[in-house]
């Protein structure tokens, strides 16, 4: 126990020291000595200024919270739409050989195409607005949602299903009491992958064409050769992505408490 605690303390100090050192290094190479010219990498003061500019005056069509909310809204819309279709479809494919036979070939055909490659097609079909982005995000989340729900149902031990059947449960009960809880751990793995894919795809979509959004901030900053704003945009992308992942992890710990228990042991 003490060994473990000492270990954690060591890791924490090392991590804190690394970040502190990096901060000092950043200051020394940019502000103090200008080894890294600020055309290529901004000084801490410049980043602070860019952050103030985007929160107070706004940049690239909106203020920071507007970009945040807009990007977040699109990801949430695409993600929810994909999950609410993809998870049931995947579970259906896992539960029924017939459904698998009918759907799987089409799926295998579409699966190797990365979600980002759908962006130009979505733009041709739906233009540069939000609809195109939601379509691509939907697609990005759909594939992992289906695959993992399918794998989730398949990972349930056949004995459990047979036992439930021999106890005479009906279809609804079987789904609610056995298939659904049994496949949840893998379903959540799928959701996490789906969310990551959504987020990457959204940023790419907004970089390619958008009016507001965090990706658009990055695009505009790149166009304006504005390195400090690029850093702010990247921080925004990282923080928003991190927050969403944490929200999903919280949801997962509520939905399947037994999983975290077993990994903790």
């Amino acid at each position, binding site marked *: 126990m003490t060994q473990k605690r000492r270990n954690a303390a060591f890791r924490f100090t090392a991590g804190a020291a690394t970040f502190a050192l990096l901060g000092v290094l950043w200051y020394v190479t940019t502000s103090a000595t200008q080894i890294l010219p600020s055309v290529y990498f901004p000084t801490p003061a410049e980043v602070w200024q860019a952050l103030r500019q985007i929160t107070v005056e706004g940049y690239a069509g909106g203020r920071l919270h507007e970009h945040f909310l807009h990007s977040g809204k699109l990801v949430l819309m695409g993600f929810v739409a994909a999950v609410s279709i993809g998870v049931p479809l995947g579970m259906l494919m896992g539960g029924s050989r017939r459904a698998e036979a009918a759907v799987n070939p089409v799926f295998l*055909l579409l699966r190797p195409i990365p979600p980002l*490659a759908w962006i130009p097609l979505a733009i041709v079909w739906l233009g540069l607005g939000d609809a195109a982005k939601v379509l691509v995000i939907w697609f990005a989340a759909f594939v992992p949602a289906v695959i993992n729900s399918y794998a989730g149902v398949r990972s349930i031990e056949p004995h459990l299903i047979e036992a439930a059947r021999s106890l005479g449960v009906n279809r609804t009960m079987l789904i609610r009491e056995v298939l659904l809880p049994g496949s949840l751990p893998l379903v959540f793995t799928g959701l996490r992958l789906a969310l990551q894919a959504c987020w990457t795809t959204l940023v790419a979509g907004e970089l390619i064409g958008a009016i507001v959004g965090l990706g658009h901030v990055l695009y505009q900053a790149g166009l304006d050769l504005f390195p400090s704003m690029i850093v702010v945009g990247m921080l925004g992308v990282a923080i928003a992505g991190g927050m969403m992942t944490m929200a999903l992890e919280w949801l997962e710990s509520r939905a399947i408490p037994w999983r975290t228990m077993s990994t903790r042991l």
Partner: protein
Amino acid sequence: MARIASDSLAHDEHALVKRREFLVLSVIGLGVFFGVWALASLGGLAPRQFLPPPWTVAAKFIDLIHEPFAGYTLQQHLLSSFTRFGMGFALAVLIGVPLGLAMGWFRWLDAIVSPLFDALRFVAPIAWVPFAALWFGTGIGGPVLVIFTGAFPPCVINAYRGARYVDKHLIEAAQTLGARHWHIITEVLLPASVPSIVAGLRVSAGLAWQSLIGAELIVASSGIGYLLVKGQASISTSIVMSGMIAIGIVGFAIDTLLQSLEASIYRRRGRK
């Protein structure tokens, strides 16, 4: 004996019927997919330019092999994409795998690099595009950096995990025989973590290919992603779809190649 034989025969027959049903359903599934597509296109659900029927796309795909579009033919675009992919991926493997192994051996390195890694994890590779373009331009350097940021993490993480889960006895044995740090890493950790590393390579290659497409969609003047953007700009759905098909085929080929590498390594390990 005879009963068992007839039983297994009946079972085979049953399986055969099942397989035939499976096949029929698969064909029906594909048929419905292409049928709906063709009908939607022919029925005028959308203008032909926006939704060409499957055979128009197939014809365009073949056309693109002969006639250059956006400056190059399809193969030339693929070749320039593949060069970037190879460079970014190779760079990620050459830096990532040794770093991961070293992190698995030296605790101080692990303690320094892991927090940085956790912090950078949430930055999507695609978000590096503006800096990549600013620092290295839009030719080769910029896209290669974006591919690198996509491919790097799985290389490091899997090499690290592989090195951490090496049998302690092997390390102790090597130490009692007087192996130095360098020898332990190259002679013990590396061979023991090959399966984990190869699994990481597969994930890494997939992410690299996807990041490459993203980078080329945003900044490039050749490559398969650039072909897509040009097709989009000239509102030619059939060109965009042909490009997507090519991307899918190459991505699939890369994955299959690494999968067979993975399988052959597992087979060889199993025989040992």
